[in-house]
């Protein structure tokens, strides 16, 4: 059984990741979002490293290192360059106001606690609470992808969602393939960022809105013509 202080530190680290998810929702400027994301990646790296230490699982250090180097440094720098080079708007278009989004976020946290707790009564306490936190982060990432319509913020929303997954994976004791998984995800993210840069995906696509695309595609226009 792990000790008191181990528990507290693991818990505080996960909670700071969650807190930074809220910070992502709170930001109105693209640069602020990128900074908050870099901080979140650092927090995830710290959490992973701490789990590696307490579980005595050295392979988790690799996960921590990937988070630190790739997500806290390379990606934020690349994204800032993209924002500059493609001349994107510095402010974020919000579908939902900041306060409403935050409120929805708190609701999602409550929801994930309600979902996870009854289901995991057999699991260890830390695993269980970690899972609840991780699920909240995942849902907040989804919320961010839905409510912030901008290619950069959508990518960041996805990455923060993935941070939640990493947190869940390192928290489950003895989970195999964690490292492989974080590498797979890094590849995916690299694809995303790379794709944005190459294809100059700039402003909103209303990516999650089917109607827009169809109208655009001439599917509806040809009805009139």
């Amino acid at each position, binding site marked *: 059984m792990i000790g008191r202080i181990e528990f507290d530190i693991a818990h505080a680290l996960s909670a700071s990741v969650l807190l930074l998810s809220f910070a992502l929702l709170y930001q109105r400027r693209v640069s602020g979002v990128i900074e908050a994301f870099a901080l979140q990646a650092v927090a995830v790296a710290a959490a992973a490293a701490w789990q590696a230490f307490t579980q005595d699982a050295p392979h988790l250090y690799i996960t921590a290192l990937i988070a630190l180097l790739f997500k806290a440094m390379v990606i934020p720098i690349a994204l800032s360059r993209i924002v500059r080079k493609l001349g994107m708007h510095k402010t974020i278009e919000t579908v939902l106001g900041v306060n409403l989004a935050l409120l929805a976020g708190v609701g999602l946290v409550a929801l994930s606690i309600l979902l996870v707790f009854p289901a995991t009564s057999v699991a260890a306490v830390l695993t269980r609470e970690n899972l609840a936190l991780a699920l909240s982060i995942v849902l907040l990432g989804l919320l961010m992808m839905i409510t912030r319509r901008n290619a950069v913020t959508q990518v960041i929303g996805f990455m923060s969602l993935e941070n939640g997954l990493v947190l869940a994976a390192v928290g489950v004791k*003895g989970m195999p393939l964690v490292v492989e998984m974080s590498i*797979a995800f890094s590849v995916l993210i690299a*694809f995303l960022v790379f794709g944005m840069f190459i294809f100059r995906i700039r402003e909103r696509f209303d990516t*999650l809105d*089917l109607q827009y695309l169809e109208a655009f595609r001439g599917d509806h226009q040809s009805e009139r013509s």
Partner: protein
Amino acid sequence: MTQIVAILIIPLVAALVLAALPWHRFAAWLNALASFSTFLAASSLLYARPEATILLFIDDFNVYLVVLTTFVAFTTSWFSASYIEHEVEIKRLTPASLRFYHAMYQVLTFAMLLALVANNIGLMWVGVEAATLTTVVMVGLYRTRESLEAAWKYFILGSVGIALALFGTMLVYLAAQSVMGEGVEALAWTGLQARAASFDPALLNLAFVFLLVGYGTKVGLAPLHAWLPDAHAEGPTPISAVLSGLLLNVALYALLRYKMILAGNEGAITPGPLMLAMGTSSLLLAGLMLYRRRDIKRMFAYSSIEHMGIIAFTFGIGGPLANFAGLLHMALHSLTKSAIFFAVGHISQVKGSQKLADMGGLTTSHPALGWGFVLGVLSIAGLPPMGLFMSEFLVVTSAMARQPWLAVPLVAGLALAFGALVLRLQQVAFGAPRGQSAPISASLVPLYLHLGMVFVAGLWLPRPLVVWFQNVASLLGG
């Protein structure tokens, strides 16, 4: 073991070779050849089934999907060779992008086969992710604004689905871990299925919700289908055929595997109602949407959503008969829909457009192609004596037997889709020829091969196939 390794290695090696080959015409046929060898290797699985290992395995369920996947991958590569030839002529594709295309085609085959033969829920997830990534780049192959947009949308939604599926995968591991101990064993299908009864049901329930939403996005079940029509419409047509015919099946396979685990556990919820709800909504939504389509590929993409809805509905009803019908429908839909996309690919090349308004009278101007298309559409609409009629008939009867009131939306959805398809078919295939009419040098063998198989399946099913289906159907539970 070597057989399984072979079906994974051949596509990988082929991908490397194709990435290096500059001659696109030769590459197209080499692509087909590689796919054919993979198909041969897969067919050998029918006669000698290897032992399961900790990472890879073959059982009654995935063997037929592996053979089907390699077969359709082969016929599609055949179709692709003549399709791509034309695309190069009209300069829609450059030889450089073709090199990429052929290599990616093999990587996609590899990823799908990996997902199918993986005896590890993590490895399977990696396979599905890799398949998503490769199809994303293929959808964006034409580099037009629309295709990039479709690829981006597919990417974002697919990634979200994949991420949620991973969360579900972790929850399943968590449930297994307390029973089976830590380590890779707790991720193996064979182990999970054997010990499913002792898992914590609450955890399994939660996991299944995430898996359903996650892999359900990839299956294209409403309301998570938004990526599907765009990805189908904007990519090269061979990719549309593979997407509809194979990738959707792979995602569905993943979902059904988890359903088996839930079926093996007393305390867990029956996933039936969830799948019924999603299936019915996909079916009805797609049925309605079919009427408003103006783009031929987009229309058949909606038809895929409709059929995935039917399949989810069928497995949702549960019971040996419905499960049997569902497995059969998966196979036949895969054959028919890829055949239709073969025809659609050539039709849009003939007409130089994907708009339905530019098409007409195909049976007069291009009889072989036109009648192939007619047969395909009639088959997908579920007319006898084609195979899909039989599977749909089984679905309806089992729905009647188990929950009669559920047969109402099912039949309504089928009728809706039938109406839309026949309406469009009339416009495209009959009457006076309309639009451009370029001559084609298309190989129609894959198209008629698929249709022939679907026709035969409507009349007679080989005995071993029936036995497998029955075995799997009993595992899938109520």
